[in-house]
């Protein structure tokens, strides 16, 4: 028997996948070639089966030999730093609530050892201008793409995102070259539109981003936002200074290298940024496009944190929406089946893989990914109202 909560989840997920599905004529076209492909079953001539000589029966123990299982508990010297995101009115901000991540004292979902204190959280991507998005994502946001505030609202109100990740891509000199001042007006609007904590991202332009993030940090003074991101080859000092002055968190981004990640973390700590104000992004490779490097990176980072390496003890962010960079996620292909399902599933599996490798804060594009990840996390923290059904389902008979 399923509880209402689960039926609701399933129904909701199905809606998210099917709701906007278009019926495309070219998907249902039947070629003359296909019509001739009716499978001709080969019915074998029935002949008597060869029998075998039955080997002698072995000797049996009469009773089951009882052996007790003891959970393999280990102890760790270190733990992941706890980071508080967002600030309420009493803390000098205007967020509805504060989100905490990190603080882990064991590996991801080793709850037989202990339950880590904070659940992973999920931010949805919002952009400050309409852009080319993969079709399965775009169909959910088409009508709000002109207005980042409405876009953010949709993420929070309709899809229940824990956070919003605002990407100020129009500031890129080769896109619109929006000034830091103009861009920070969008930050203010989004902060007014939603009361969840936010991530503020630049355009990825190394020269411009420090200026954009600096201006955004100022208008968001006291809100304890996440500034996304700094790397060693840009003016990170400017961003760190703004984060310290206005009370924000900084993402320490390094492309797929644990040693460079450590070095950058060290540089940030040396600038006087408290470790409680740093989150790492060691790069999420899309499923099929380098996710294996990310798996090993995240696992090594968490093991390092538990071993007590202070340069690896910050929580890890996964930009799981990178999954959409994989052509298998967005490309129309009759051979591979409808992208309306294939695309979100590609992102869902990328995010789940990162979740089980140790990521604690996520950037996600598709509402179906968000729905699945939130449900899985609720279940893994056994906060779900659904009681564990201890009687196993007899799948041998039951599979439809």
């Amino acid at each position, binding site marked *: 028997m399923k509880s209402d909560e689960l039926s609701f989840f399933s129904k909701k997920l199905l809606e998210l996948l099917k709701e906007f599905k278009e019926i495309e004529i070219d998907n249902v076209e039947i070629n003359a070639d296909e019509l001739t492909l009716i499978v001709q079953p080969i*019915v074998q001539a029935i002949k008597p089966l060869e029998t075998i000589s039955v080997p002698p029966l072995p000797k049996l123990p009469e009773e089951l030999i009882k052996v007790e299982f003891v959970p393999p508990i280990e102890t760790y010297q270190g733990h992941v730093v706890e980071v508080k995101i967002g600030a309420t009115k009493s803390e000098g901000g205007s967020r509805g609530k504060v989100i905490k991540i990190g603080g882990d004292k064991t590996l991801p979902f080793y709850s037989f050892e202990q339950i880590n204190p904070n659940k992973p959280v999920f931010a949805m991507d919002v952009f400050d201008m309409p852009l080319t998005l993969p079709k399965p994502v775009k169909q959910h946001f088409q009508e709000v793409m002109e207005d980042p505030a409405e876009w953010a609202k949709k993420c929070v109100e309709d899809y229940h995102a824990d956070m919003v990740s605002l990407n100020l891509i129009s500031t890129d000199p080769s896109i619109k070259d929006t000034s830091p001042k103009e861009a920070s007006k969008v930050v203010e609007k989004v902060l007014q539109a939603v009361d969840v904590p936010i991530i503020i991202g630049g355009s990825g332009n190394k020269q411009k981003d420090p200026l954009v993030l600096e201006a955004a940090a100022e208008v968001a003074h006291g809100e304890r936002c996440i500034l996304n991101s700094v790397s060693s080859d840009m003016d990170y000092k400017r961003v760190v200074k703004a984060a310290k002055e206005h009370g924000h968190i900084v993402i320490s981004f390094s492309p797929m290298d644990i040693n460079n990640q450590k070095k950058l973390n060290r540089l940030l700590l040396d600038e006087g940024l408290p470790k409680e104000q740093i989150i790492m992004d060691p790069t999420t490779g899309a499923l099929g496009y380098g996710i294996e490097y990310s798996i*090993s990176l995240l696992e090594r980072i968490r093991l390092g944190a538990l071993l007590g390496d202070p340069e690896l003890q910050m929580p890890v962010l996964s930009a799981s929406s990178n999954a959409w960079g994989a052509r298998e996620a967005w490309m129309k292909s009759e051979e591979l089946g409808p992208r309306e399902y294939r695309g979100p599933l590609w992102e869902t599996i990328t995010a789940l893989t990162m979740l089980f490798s140790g990521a604690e804060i996520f950037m996600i594009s598709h509402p*179906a990914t968000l729905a699945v990840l939130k449900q899985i996390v609720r279940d*893994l923290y056994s906060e779900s109202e659904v009681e564990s059904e201890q009687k196993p389902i007899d799948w041998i*008979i039951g599979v439809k």
Partner: protein
Amino acid sequence: MTHERVSLLEVYKYLPQTNCGKCGEVSCMAFASKLIERKITLDKCTPLKEPKYKEKLNKLIELITPPVKEIIIGVGDKAVKVGGKEVMYRHELTFHNPTAIAIDVSDKMDDEKIIERCKLIESFQVTRIGQQLKLDMVAIRCASQSIERFAEVASLVVKNCSLPIILCSFDPEALREAIEQKIVLERNPLLYAATEKNWKEVGMLAKQYKLPVTIFSPNDLSMMKSLVHTLRRMGVEDLLLDPGFFYEGKGLMDTINNLTMIRRSAIRKGDKDLGYPILMVPAVVWAEENPDPILSSYKEAYFASILLNRYADLLIMHTLEKWALLPVLTLRQAIYTDPIKPVSVEPGLRIIGQPNEKSPVLITTNFALTYYTVESDIESGKISCYLLVLDTGGLSVQSSVAGGQFTAAGVRDLILSSGVESKVKHKKLIIPGLAARLRGDIEDLTKWEVMVGPMDSSEIKSFLEKYWKTP
């Protein structure tokens, strides 16, 4: 007791140390090193077979036997090896024996449907980065609860499909009826499953016919250990463990804990009772009332991916939708690649097809995945061109543009050092769509005209057809 991976010197200690070279290695030390990395097998050392080394050989076998036993299901070149795991994390040593994926067949379907499904399973194939992704086995379910029908379907499947099979029933008589057919027995099928209730009968079958058998002990690892222990005492050594797949509410938490605890007990605590491969059944999601085909395929795929990430060595699935299986197979491919394989290819100039002085010049990065994808798209499009491969430290286009490894200066240096200028009579460079923002900088530095190519290399062919006017 903690099981640690065996050291090079320890292995070397038990080798003949004569450096005879009969194994093809330069020295016994080199052999030892390959042995640990599982790149060579012990039988290649022929001197070890001499009687005087018998004790050393036995010691070596004990040393290098993985803490998670390797089990073979099926026969011949389609046989599937599962388990054989030595580490908890893939960065410690390449994971061996990729998680096998079986698809179920119900004995309630009519014969024609069964044959059709078998053919679909066996012919399922997707090519990704030069590898064929395939399904490995067929799991036959005794859903009819008829002993005769189950046996009939088992032989029908064996006749129509060359993949290894799993015989699924909790009824020992159904299993017996199926395996007492010569063609079925000869396939070396996996039995599913011995339980708290039927362990005597099913254990006896496994022993009698020397078949691998799964132990099913839902959410009870003490019972699991007891069953394994008892069956091992009976002399049944080829086991798989199914601690049950509960995917709702607290059940999911229990499932994940069970998987982690089984694997950690085997690898880190040397628990012999739990040192067997894990079998999981994501197909369980199809046992809900009125399953929706899309929703259940979607769920089954993401649960399968969680189980792949958490030590499952064999999965029984139900969906045959390509959109659902492709990401699961892709994840398996990723997890089981060599973690220390080079991330990058040699930078420089590649000549693809038979280009002439009017052929296009394209540029990409030296990240292996990017490079091979671009190369295969160009080749499959039958395009002749020059491809510049930029040293981005093994990063993709997106990461290296963001990370500052894909720069205009780098492009300029590559154009100069590669000698591409002497190969073509034009100065037009096609850059990846994802590197569009570097267009101006590259033009300024190189004085070449930059064309911004497609966002994805699958569109290179149509891009060239549309925009490449022979200079």
